[in-house]
């Protein structure tokens, strides 16, 4: 059976979700739960770190589509970071870079949230 897990780091106003292992139709509900729990706690500023993700299928990509509008409606976002070329190629093939911001480093993705807030407060 494929292994998949998520873990969360609280980075101030931003929550970083780390993905590990294989994200397919079997394990996608684990990520759904992670996003649902964050939304329940009104945590809408989310960075997803793909560093330890070995595999993603369209069932995994679908999870991102399921939650993104609700999160953006609450002035939040899901920003993606540290993707392997292999995982990025699948995102790219399906046109996801048009809908999601993808950053090279976790720090950059986290900082984008505070930059957006600063602009809004001007």
């Amino acid at each position, binding site marked *: 059976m494929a292994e998949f897990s998520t873990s969360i780091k609280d980075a101030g106003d931003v929550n970083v979700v780390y993905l590990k292992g294989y994200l397919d139709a079997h394990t996608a509900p684990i990520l759904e739960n992670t996003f649902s729990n964050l939304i329940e706690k009104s945590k809408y500023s989310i960075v997803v770190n793909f560093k330890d993700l070995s595999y993603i299928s369209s069932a995994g990509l679908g999870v991102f*589509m399921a939650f993104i509008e609700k999160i953006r409606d609450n002035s939040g976002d899901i920003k993606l970071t540290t993707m392997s070329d292999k995982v990025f190629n699948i995102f790219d093939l399906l046109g996801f870079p048009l*809908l999601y911001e993808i950053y090279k480093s976790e720090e950059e993705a986290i900082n984008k949230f505070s930059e957006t807030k600063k602009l809004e407060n001007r």
Partner: protein
Amino acid sequence: MKTDNKKIREKELVVKSNTTNLSSIRDFVYATALEIGFSSEVVDNIILAVDEACTNIIKHAYKSFPEGEITIKLKYNNKKFTIVIIDHGIPFNPDTIPDPDLQKYYRQHRVGGLGMYLMKSLMDEVKYVSVPGKYNQVLLSKNLNTTH
């Protein structure tokens, strides 16, 4: 042995229609695709296409009923790798599946057809055959020496 063998070789795996089995399906296809001599990038694409085909069968042909049967047949020589996936669930007409529209999915909070699109993009050939009341078959193939 593998480089001078033009004879078609075959392997077969039969699993239940449970998403738990997706990883063993991927492992089964992975080992053979590597042995044939595809690059690791192409091997990754092939196992993703097979995963998408089997996920569609589990979700749509068997409506997530976990006791259906899925047969995965591998046929290969030094020119071509063919994966034939057979189920006995609800027949499927691929012509009814439009290409994915991400803007629409964004509004609907759901996705559909992504798997089909990936299969067509990643493989050289994707063919569906349904014999109503008997079986459905999807054939995926990849030629060796292709660059993508």
